[in-house]
């Protein structure tokens, strides 16, 4: 996807390169930024949490392995996992192809929606991701 590097407006990001894509008031999807996926290179494995798990902001929710490196995934906010993108097990390359779209990792129900305000806007994130 040619414009897969463009960060959608409803996305907030962390310094550790995870994003939160807010679809309605207390539901959101989490993944990693296109920049992070580019840096990691072709992703070959992903470990994701179980549905129903509650994870605190800053704790790991999984890990990804690319051809060249491994990386832990950190929760951008405290939340309960309500869905997992199982398609990534078979096609982890979706993260490289379209990280903000089909490459989403987990869907969450936010424990404390105010935490969203602590995350970076796309413009702020673009300052660190280059």
């Amino acid at each position, binding site marked *: 996807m040619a414009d897969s590097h463009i960060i959608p407006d409803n996305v907030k990001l962390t310094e550790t390169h995870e994003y939160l894509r807010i679809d309605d008031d207390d539901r959101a999807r989490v993944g990693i930024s296109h920049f992070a996926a580019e840096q990691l290179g*072709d992703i*070959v494995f992903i470990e994701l949490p179980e549905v129903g798990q509650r994870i605190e902001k800053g704790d790991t929710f999984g890990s990804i*392995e690319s*051809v060249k490196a*491994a990386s*832990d995934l950190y929760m951008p906010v405290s939340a309960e996992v309500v869905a997992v993108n199982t398609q990534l097990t078979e096609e982890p390359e979706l993260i*490289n192809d379209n990280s903000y779209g089909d490459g989403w990792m987990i869907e969450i129900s936010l424990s404390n929606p105010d935490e969203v305000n602590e995350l970076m806007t796309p413009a702020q994130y673009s300052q660190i991701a280059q």
Partner: protein
Amino acid sequence: MQSELSTLCQTPLGPHHRSVGAKMVPFAGWEMPLQFSKVKEEHLAVRSAAGLFDIGHMGLVTLQLDEASLGAFNALVPQDLRKLTPGKAVYTQFLNERGGIIDDLIIYRLPELSDSQLSDAFSGWLVICNASNTAEDIAWMQQHLSVPLKHQTHYTLFALQGPHFSAVLDRFGVRAEQLPARFHVAELSVKLPTGDSFSILVARTGYTGEDGVELIVPIAFASVFWAALIEQGAPLGLLPIGLAARDTLRLEAAYPLHGHDITPDYTPIEAGLGWSVKWAEDNAFIGRDALNTQKQTANHKHFVCFNLSGRTIPRQDDTIMYQGKAVGVVTSGSISMSLGHPIAMGYVDASTPHAPGDILQIQVRDTLAEATITSRPFYSANRIKG
């Protein structure tokens, strides 16, 4: 990133790679393509069809040897070069006094060439060095030899690997029966679709575990030949291949990468390269005493290959564990694109079990992953025997 890349050497194909959108990275002082498409796609193209690699970063060094200087040159490697007939090549290493590997190389005894330009550059002996060690290799040879060395910078190197490599070359007027046998080198004439023809050196060597060739190409023809190979090879499944897939391919073939799996701290005996050490009584070489001691006492590290069943990929410097103790270190690890599971290579201490089937563990971040020793290589194609 741009400024970092601008100080790097470029192969003649650098502008071409950038124009097709390859991801470029610094590697051993060179700006090289990491990948053109997807690593897995490139890897599997080499296994099932063919792949074209720009390996113009590797060093091409030629030298002329008479009988006396051949003796001095032969003392730099544990192979026996005195037995090499024109047109043949060997895999070998430069060793230090401790037997440690300064670099691993392929040394070619060149045949008589008919093309006058090619024979001006390539007569006598050819050493192909790793990019990161070329300067050190040249200095090492200069220190021990009194003959002039020539770093051949007007030629570049491609690798064409995979089961369809010969069909690709056929489109350039090179017939399968003209190809040199494995670990041989020959001069061949290449005819471009435009009708132009020129001479190249073709060596039946590679770093992928597939049958294939490495091609020494005059820089004047490099871009046009590369483009023609891509175009003519495409219907046969050929893809351009970057360094990332070159690494996953060589790892499946269990070929060591200098600077990682082999270094001046490891000997060929430890590295499982003892087959390339020739012990004839009159074959004196630097490091022989150290290697001989290791061989006699068997008290040395062992290079081992591991299969893993989970989704945890060991990486360089991860610790190998046995019965709760650290017994070694991983030197390379990745996913095997052909086998679908993680694989790794590394060294274990002399007293650690190291036979195929033995089960050890690898500490990968906070996971202790079970790793089963396997015989090398992980993957092997049905090779044509030379």
